[in-house]
Every structure is written in structure tokens, then in C-alpha cells.
């Protein structure tokens, strides 16, 4: 498995061959607070880089989830739909959002590595 990459919209992406697993970061969950609802893209649907690919809602507000790369959704994680609290508990492992078949691997180039993302998320607070 390759290294985990991060987007400016606070999503993480992990590649395994042509399959990308995507979720939201620990930092994102800390900003959102308790997540109580999640909506995921349908299996078989196509999503476009930086386009909306889901919604998370906390007790306070709704926020869009974006996809950092384009592709076709091959799986979505029903366990977080049934129990959204899992997202706060383990956002960067168990609570992944969806898997997609990546269309164009060069879209990964513009994403950040872990160090770059940590620096970015610290600066983006307030």
C-alpha cells in the first residue's frame, strides 16, 4: 500500500492498485464535533475530483464531503451510516467513507503528504 495523502478539504486517500479508499481526517472530525448523520455516494456512481461526494452532519450543522480524485464508486461504508459516531471514534481507519476506482492517477500529485497536511491543518485553524 502506498502512503496516505490529504486534501485541503480535509479528506484522506489511501491507494491500493487502482482502488482508492477515502475518508475524512481526525482534524476534520475535531472541527465538526459529534457526527450524527452521514450520506455517502451510491455504488456505481461517478464522482469528479473536488466535487461533492457526500454529507456529514453534526448536531450543529451540515457539511459537504468532497472527493480528492475522480472515479467510479465501488463500495461505500454502511457501518458509518448505521452508526455515525464511529467517524469521531476512528476517522482515519475503520470509519472510511467510500472506495473508488481511480480514473487518473496524476490527480494524486496535487495532494499533500502527512507532514504537509499537518502543517496546513494547523494553519487553517481559525
Amino acid at each position, binding site marked *: 500500500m502506498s502512503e496516505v495523502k490529504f486534501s485541503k478539504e480535509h479528506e484522506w486517500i489511501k491507494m491500493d492498485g487502482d482502488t482508492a479508499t477515502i475518508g475524512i481526517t481526525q482534524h476534520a472530525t475535531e472541527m465538526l*464535533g459529534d457526527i*450524527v*448523520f452521514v450520506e455517502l455516494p451510491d455504488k456505481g456512481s461517478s464522482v469528479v475530483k473536488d466535487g461533492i461526494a457526500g454529507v456529514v452532519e*453534526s*448536531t*450543529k450543522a*451540515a457539511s459537504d464531503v468532497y472527493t480528492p480524485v475522480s472515479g467510479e464508486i465501488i463500495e461505500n461504508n454502511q457501518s458509518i*451510516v448505521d452508526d455515525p459516531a464511529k467517524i*469521531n471514534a476512528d476517522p482515519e481507519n475503520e470509519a472510511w467513507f467510500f472506495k473508488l476506482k481511480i480514473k487518473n492517477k496524476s490527480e494524486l500529485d496535487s495532494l499533500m503528504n502527512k507532514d504537509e497536511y499537518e502543517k496546513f491543518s494547523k494553519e487553517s485553524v481559525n
Partner: protein
Amino acid sequence: MEIKKTALYSLHQKHGAKFVPFANYEMPIQYPTGIIAEHKATREKVGIFDVSHMGQLFIKDDNQLAEDLEKIFPIDLKNILLNQSKYSFLMNENAGIHDDLIITKIKDGFNIVLNAVCKNSDFELLKKLLNNKYEMRLNDNLSLVAIQGPKACEILEKIISGISDLKFMNGNYFSYSSKNVYITRSGYTGEDGFEISIKNEIVEIFVEALLKEGGKLIGLGARDTLRLEAGLCLYGHDIDIKTTPVEANLKWAISKKRLITGRFLGYEKINSQIESGTKKVRVGITPVNKIIAREKTKIYNEENKIIGEITSGTYGPSVQKSIAMGYIDSKFSNIDIKIFLEVRGKKYPAKICKLPFYKKNYVKGAK
């Protein structure tokens, strides 16, 4: 205008509060454990709320005051007992709500607790309505702390003895740190609890003492989920100048006697609305699936016609489902009628239901 801080600001900071501007005050929205943990702590044990941003208005008595206030408020103030509190509204001529409030009869006059966003305009309006006849003061030297939950009485009693004798919607003076505090048995969470009006200089040690006894600090986030589960209105959202108490389903707060005698602001409109009904009415709404319907969500009937709008909506941590309130065309306001909510362009089924979503645990009499 410079943003204000309450006397408890540094205590909030010390306990890791996340702040938001609210009604021109820097207020804690939540603490590190989060809104759901705070909500559950209040329902299961005890929560402590800084509500010092709210207005504490004192109007000094004269034999005329109760009579003059009756020309404004739709409640029986001539027969109110000393230290009794009543929920009421400040309305305009058309019964549009300027603010909702709690009036308490105290020894030398009346105390009125006002919403933070409205307090200054309420003050000016009341001064005008009372023809400048009375000494009025919005007291900034006082903080207001709410303690709510099944253990509120037990914990507060340890710090200020005698408070457990207070009846619901009644208050009295007590002593803390050799200073007078005024405590009422009231709140806005659907739980038993108290509101303590206390001098700014001793509020921090008072709250620290409550925390030591097991109280948990609660921010505005959980205050909102708690009041919504209890079916209570938030001014500026569920009620405002464009809604009347009858439309808001708050008729119960209007004195039956005053409906006969009349002569209060908005009486004609209220009377005609009670007689002939209203076009719209506030109802409780529960989406069939997990979708959350926020403020401004449109409500549709089965024929795909817009019949109303959501005014508050969230996930209720104690009832463990999505809950909302809103105004709906009265023709469609029957319990269990099928409606649809438009969220992000899609329509989801929902039901009209009884309020509150969460059954109240008020203590009526003293133990």
C-alpha cells in the same frame, strides 16, 4: 460594537471551551467532551450553563406597576404571588412577538429575564410603554447561572441550603459567600433545575463549587439540543415578530382571565385567532429516516405543494432520532399526517408529532 464577555469567560477558557459570537457575546458553544456528552450529562446527572448574556431587568414598584404591566403582558400580574415566576411575551399591537421572557414578582417590584439579542430593544420599548414612569435597570453587575438535571437539586442544596424547598416557577433570596443571591426553580432544558442570579465577583467561585460537586459545564450547542427535545422555542428562530403566541402554539401562557378582560398589547389579534383559528401553526416534526431537517427546510404535502417551513432541527441525543419544529398550514397540522421535507434537493417523508419529543421531569411541589 465591541464583543462582550461574561464574568465566567476565563473559567470557560480554563475548561477548554470553544467560543462563538452569540448576541454580541463571546459564548462557549461546547467544551472538549462535545455536545452529545454534555447533553447526556444534563439529562442523566447535572449540567451548568452560563446564561449571563441574558438580560436581567428590574423595574421598581409603585402601587401602579402591576396594573401598568398588565397593559403590556397577557398574564395576571395583580394576583401574582411574591416570588412567583411566569412565562410571557412582549408583543406588538398585532401580537407579533418582540421577545419571550420570564417575569418574577420580587419584594420591591418585578424582575424580567430577557433574551440576550433582544434585551436592549426590549428595555427601550418597555420604558416607552411604561411612559418613563418607573425606575428601570438592566443589571450588568449580575451573572445568571442555570443548573439543570436530575441531580441539580441535590448538588445545589449542598452549596446553598434550603433551595430544595422551592417550588417550580418560584424563587427566593438565599445567601452565598455572605452575599444575596436570587434563585428560581426554572430552566429551559426539560429537566428540573434552578437559575441563580449572582453578583459577578462571586460567580466564578460559585461555579467552581458546583463543578467540585460533580456538575458539568454545558455550552450553547447542548442547550439547543436540550431545549429542542423539550419542545421549547428559541427566539429568532421558532418565534419572532412575524409569529403570534397562538400560531406558536403557546396559548397556554396566556391567562384565561386576561382573555376575558383583555386590555393588553395584541389582545384583539389573539382573541380573533383563538376564535377563528390561524393560517399556520407550530408543530413538532420527525423525519421517517435519519435525515436532519435544518431551519428553512421546506415542507411539502402529498400533492407536492409547499405547506410550511422548518424553524429548528437537529439530532436529539436522548430520543436518539432526528427532530424538528416548524410552521405548517393549519389544514395539514393533524398529528400523524404525512408530509415531505426537502433536504439537498431530495424529498424525504416525515410525520407531524406531539411536542415535547422528550418528556419533562419538572418537580411541581417541594419535597
